């Protein structure tokens, strides 16, 4: 068990900068998920923590020890790969014990660890099988078992569920969550799937273009995204954005309007917007409603309706702005061609300044 600290970490291959000034501190026992679009550097960051990729500059500490120059095996980490990476010519038990063989661990201790891991992951009946005789879910459990027997300080997961089908993904996700409760180990988990991120993480690190866009608890990221990128990345379908300008500022009230956005007034805007400043107003599809009576209102024509059962997504057009998505609950679903008035509560509006940074709305 250990803390993990990353200090001003940079990675570049020649001219190409992969990671830029990453600072991250993970307390002992925390489950941190790195999430971001492909190419954002999240996997590279994980591989650098593991010691599989070198550090260009900056430091990585596991516990109190600077591990930059240590081999992966000396870092007390264990990694679970997306591809499972099981040794195909060894049975499940050998897969789990192969690494321990080289640590000089006494046999009874090896046996105890394998027995514990096998029980935890329900692998007992599979111990003599080869990987090729296992299903995808079983293979991934073996890969996790191989990590557990090392009793590492830090568990690293590289998109471990991406190769599983939808149903298995959910059940394996639940198992990983249980495992974290049980082992109370520090875990770093990379995924591009925000549902995995939201459900598993104590804290989420959203990455974009080699930098950390925001670090926070899952609901904090959802309700108070720090910038446009996080606002658009977290949540599905993504947040709707409207261009707007600050028209008027009187006392604590600010009036905004945009080309496709009728003027509306907000209270207590905690920033000092100059009149005429350009902003973006964001609102999530699930917060737009045809029945609410907020001051933010748009009139829109329904172009397409996707019915999912419990909810339906209405794709609507507002003026000349590309499609806006509104989530409708229940049986009352507009039809194509209807003109609806959609509204949202003040607290569900997200305002971003010209630089894409969040402007706090109370």
């Amino acid at each position, binding site marked *: 068990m250990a803390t993990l600290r990353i200090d001003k970490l940079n990675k570049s291959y020649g001219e190409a900068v992969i990671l830029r000034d990453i600072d991250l501190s993970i307390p002992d026992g925390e489950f941190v998920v790195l999430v971001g679009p492909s190419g954002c550097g999240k996997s590279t960051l994980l591989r650098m923590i593991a010691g599989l990729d070198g550090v260009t500059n900056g430091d990585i500490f596991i516990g109190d020890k600077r591990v930059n120059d240590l081999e*992966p095996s000396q870092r007390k980490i264990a990694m679970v790969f997306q591809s499972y990476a099981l040794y195909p010519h060894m049975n499940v038990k050998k897969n789990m014990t192969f690494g321990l063989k080289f640590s000089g661990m006494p046999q009874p201790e090896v046996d105890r660890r394998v027995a514990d891991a096998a029980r935890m992951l329900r692998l007992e009946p599979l111990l003599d099988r080869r990987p090729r005789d296992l299903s995808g879910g079983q293979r991934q459990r073996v890969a996790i078992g191989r990590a557990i027997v090392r009793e590492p300080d830090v568990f690293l997961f590289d998109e471990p569920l991406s190769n599983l089908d939808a149903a298995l993904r959910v059940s394996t996700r639940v198992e990983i969550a249980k495992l974290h409760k049980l082992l109370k180990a520090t875990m770093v988990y990379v995924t591009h799937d925000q549902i995995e991120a939201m459900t598993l993480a104590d804290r989420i690190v959203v990455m974009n273009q080699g930098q950390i866009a925001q670090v926070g608890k899952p609901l904090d990221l959802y309700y108070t995204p720090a910038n446009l990128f996080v606002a658009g990345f977290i949540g599905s379908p993504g947040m709707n954005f409207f261009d707007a300008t600050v028209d008027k500022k009187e006392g604590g009230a600010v009036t905004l309007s945009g080309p496709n956005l009728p003027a509306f007034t907000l209270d207590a805007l905690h920033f000092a917007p100059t009149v005429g400043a350009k902003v973006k107003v964001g609102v999530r599809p699930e917060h737009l409603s045809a029945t609410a009576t907020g001051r933010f209102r748009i009139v829109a024509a329904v172009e397409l309706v996707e019915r999912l059962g419990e909810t339906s997504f209405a794709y609507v057009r507002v003026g000349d702005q590309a499609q806006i998505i509104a989530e409708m609950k229940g049986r009352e679903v507009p039809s194509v061609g209807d003109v609806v008035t959609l509204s949202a509560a003040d607290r569900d509006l997200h305002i971003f300044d010209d630089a894409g940074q969040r402007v706090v709305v109370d």
Partner: protein
Amino acid sequence: MRPLVSKVGVHAVLGAYTLLAVFPILLVVMNSFKTRNAIFGSPLSPPNAETFSLIGYHKVLGNAHVGTYFANSMIVTLGSMFFVLLFGAMAAWALTEYKFKGSNWLALYLSIGIMVPIRLGSVAIVTMMREAGLNDTLTALVLVYIAQGLPMAIFILSEFIEQIPRDLRDAARCDGVPETRIFFEVIAPLLRPAIATVAVFTIVPIWNDLWFPLILTSSESTHTITLGVQQFLGQYITDWNSVLAALSLAILPVVVIYVLFSRQLISGLTAGAVK
């Protein structure tokens, strides 16, 4: 389903090629069981009750040296194969897995070995072996064959190693497996089909080689079977029975080795490792 015509066409072409390839061998084996007169009288007919004769085999097996020739061929072939596979696999692993200064140049240098035939260096090789005191030894042959086989072995094995998922090596590294063990216990077992391929590629030319035994060995105790057979070919009289019998026998070991290795030529050994 492909149309019947194209199926028949493909098999006709393959059948014709097989016939073409097998015919000379068949001719040698067939005639090795015939009397001398029958060999010349009707070379294309199979042996019958009248023409059947084992005289060639009697002569060959009765010859005191033939056993030595076979043993020499075996030692040279298997010895070279072992080292070609060992060094080839190790070099291929090093060249694909580790990027070090000059690794690309080294790979290029080795691939030149595929393109330039080693026989061009015959004179230098003979001089070298004589100066090293290895003239007329099997060691000399083994060394030459290792040099001859290595470039191709490295080339083929590198391709195979590239195909082994990178995650597997990374997983082993995280597991604390030392690099040499990663090679011998994780990579090498997965290379089995490739190693079998390379083994076959390596063995056949060595077993069949006449050139290097001819220039590097002089005494009968170091002759290989291909060179040994030559003693039955005289300037004035050629003992065709013995020549054909010896050649037929010489085919056998290669066929046996091929059958043994071809069992390893099954793909899908990495099944279950990833995905």
